[in-house]
């Protein structure tokens, strides 16, 4: 649909077609509301993006998610979407402290803690229990590191074993509140890590078809500039300069941008505006995508590999420039039935401040360095002939993420923990305005964003039903 063809008035306008925005739009339409989804990019999916180059398809954010995604897709999308989800076979750690392969299931992880790290079964069990019983209302002062120290004092190897995957999954470090760790770790630590067979492109296509079936109007390359208020309540949006009337909005866009730019600090209660300004964003990422020549096969070396040359897990090591640590996702033909090419995606934590002030020439050089470092690690550690078999390489940086998703500072996982309160309080500050999307560590990733979209769609439905 084109912006000119939109209806005179909507019940809800969803700003942004990331996983949270799409899931919310689909729910609201199923509830019977008239919904318009506006997406700034020419593809849906947001950070869960894919791109096609020279016969390759690369996924940016499809490495692995918790088993809960199956149920979430079945309940809030469709059985067909849920049925594409399969378990990944193996996850590898390779760092100066240890090299381990695990399925990341409770059984195998427990086995590694007991037999490799020599922890007692009782300690493992009580640690898992403590993680599972954590919820939102617990002590928020305790950090993840303090929590680790209670169970595994002085064991920086175990801290790394516990933290590294979660760091890659949501950008958190062990300085974040322990409850954010406990909640996310418990989501992952049950039946292993899962993948969407067919890739991000199939997922997004299926979501789009489902939304269209349920009557969501979708307009691409429509950037929302303003959320309009009347008597303090949401009354419309302005997208590409065009005004569209709506009773409510659900923004999947960056939380800070939603509050401070689209609504505007001057339209917010002073204390709420202050918490929006104080709220810290998450860090960003850079990535290197490698396409392997046609006809070449890679042996199985694991689906996800956490590689680090840092002596131990220290938060600053994981956003260091140049990177010391990266995760590799290996895409075998099993990932996309009917498509036989191999690809590798390396992901690294990164900070916009290391990238934003580079001249065009410096920027290109820095990207080349990133690619070169990644190839040389692969060559030394994982795929000795990588240079010979590589056909295509490309790099993405915090600037790339900002350009495609409009996240301030290229933040790839929303905000730090305090963002949850801001997100939840938005409808109290501005009736009719809602936010759902990666925020506060616990509401990020495919599963977190989808579930948060459902939670907020319910709240918005309540608002519309009362009005």
């Amino acid at each position, binding site marked *: 649909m084109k912006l000119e063809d939109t209806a005179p008035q909507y019940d809800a306008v969803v700003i942004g077609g990331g996983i949270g925005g799409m899931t919310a739009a689909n729910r609201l339409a199923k509830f019977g509301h008239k919904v318009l989804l506006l997406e700034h990019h020419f593809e849906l999916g947001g950070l869960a993006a894919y791109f096609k180059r020279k016969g390759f398809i690369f996924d940016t954010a499809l490495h692995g998610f918790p088993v809960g995604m199956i*149920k*979430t897709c079945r*309940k809030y999308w469709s059985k067909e979407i849920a049925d594409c989800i399969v378990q990944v076979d193996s996850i590898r750690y390779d760092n100066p402290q240890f090299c381990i392969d695990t399925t990341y299931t409770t059984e195998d992880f427990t086995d590694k803690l007991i037999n490799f790290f020599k922890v007692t079964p009782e300690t493992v069990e009580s640690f898992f229990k403590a993680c599972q019983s954590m919820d939102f209302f617990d002590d928020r002062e305790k950090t993840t590191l303090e929590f680790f120290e209670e169970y595994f004092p002085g064991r920086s190897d175990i801290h790394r074993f516990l933290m590294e995957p979660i760091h890659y999954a949501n950008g958190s470090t062990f300085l974040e509140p322990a409850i954010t760790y406990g909640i996310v770790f418990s989501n992952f630590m049950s039946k292993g890590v899962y993948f969407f067979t067919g890739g991000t492109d199939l997922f997004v296509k299926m979501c789009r078809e489902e939304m269209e079936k349920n009557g969501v109007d979708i307009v691409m390359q429509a950037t929302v500039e303003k959320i309009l208020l009347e008597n303090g309540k949401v009354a419309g949006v302005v997208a590409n300069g065009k005004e569209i009337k709506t009773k409510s909005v659900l923004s999947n866009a960056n939380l800070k941008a939603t509050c401070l730019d689209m609504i505007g600090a001057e339209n917010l209660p002073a204390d709420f505006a202050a918490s929006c300004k104080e709220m810290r964003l998450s860090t960003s990422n850079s990535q290197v995508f490698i396409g392997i020549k046609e006809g070449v096969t890679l042996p199985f070396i694991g689906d996800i590999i956490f590689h680090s040359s840092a002596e131990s897990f220290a938060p600053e090591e994981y956003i260091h420039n140049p990177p010391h640590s990266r995760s590799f996702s290996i895409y075998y033909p099993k990932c996309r039935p009917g498509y036989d090419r191999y690809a590798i995606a390396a992901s690294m934590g990164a900070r916009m401040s290391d990238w934003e002030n580079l001249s065009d020439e410096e920027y290109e050089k820095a990207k080349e360095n990133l690619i070169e470092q990644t190839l040389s690690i692969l060559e030394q550690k994982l795929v000795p002939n990588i240079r010979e078999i590589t056909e295509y390489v490309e790099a993405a940086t915090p600037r790339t993420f900002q350009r495609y998703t409009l996240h301030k500072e290229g933040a790839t996982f929303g905000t730090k923990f305090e963002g949850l309160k801001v997100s939840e309080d938005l409808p109290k500050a501005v009736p009719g305005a809602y936010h759902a999307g990666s925020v506060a560590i616990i509401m990020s990733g495919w599963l977190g964003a989808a579930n948060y979209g*459902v939670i907020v769609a319910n709240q918005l439905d309540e608002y519309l039903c009362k009005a």
Partner: protein
Amino acid sequence: MAMSKDEIRAAVLEIIEEIAPDEDIASMNDEEPIREQIGLDSMDFLDIVMELRKQYKVEVPEDDYNELRTLASTVAYLEGKM
């Protein structure tokens, strides 16, 4: 007309069955916490609250979520509300 206790119980079980089709609803005990008997997570719980609102126009504010711990307490809480 207000629903009887038995009708409310049946309505709640029907909702749970929709949300968790693989669970053995029939053998559930009324006095034990629901979440300890069948595999319901916090999203399932929110779905139950949502269905009560959509199907029966009952609002369960977050402060009252504890009232829905067991089947018996749920029925008692909902009596007169639906």
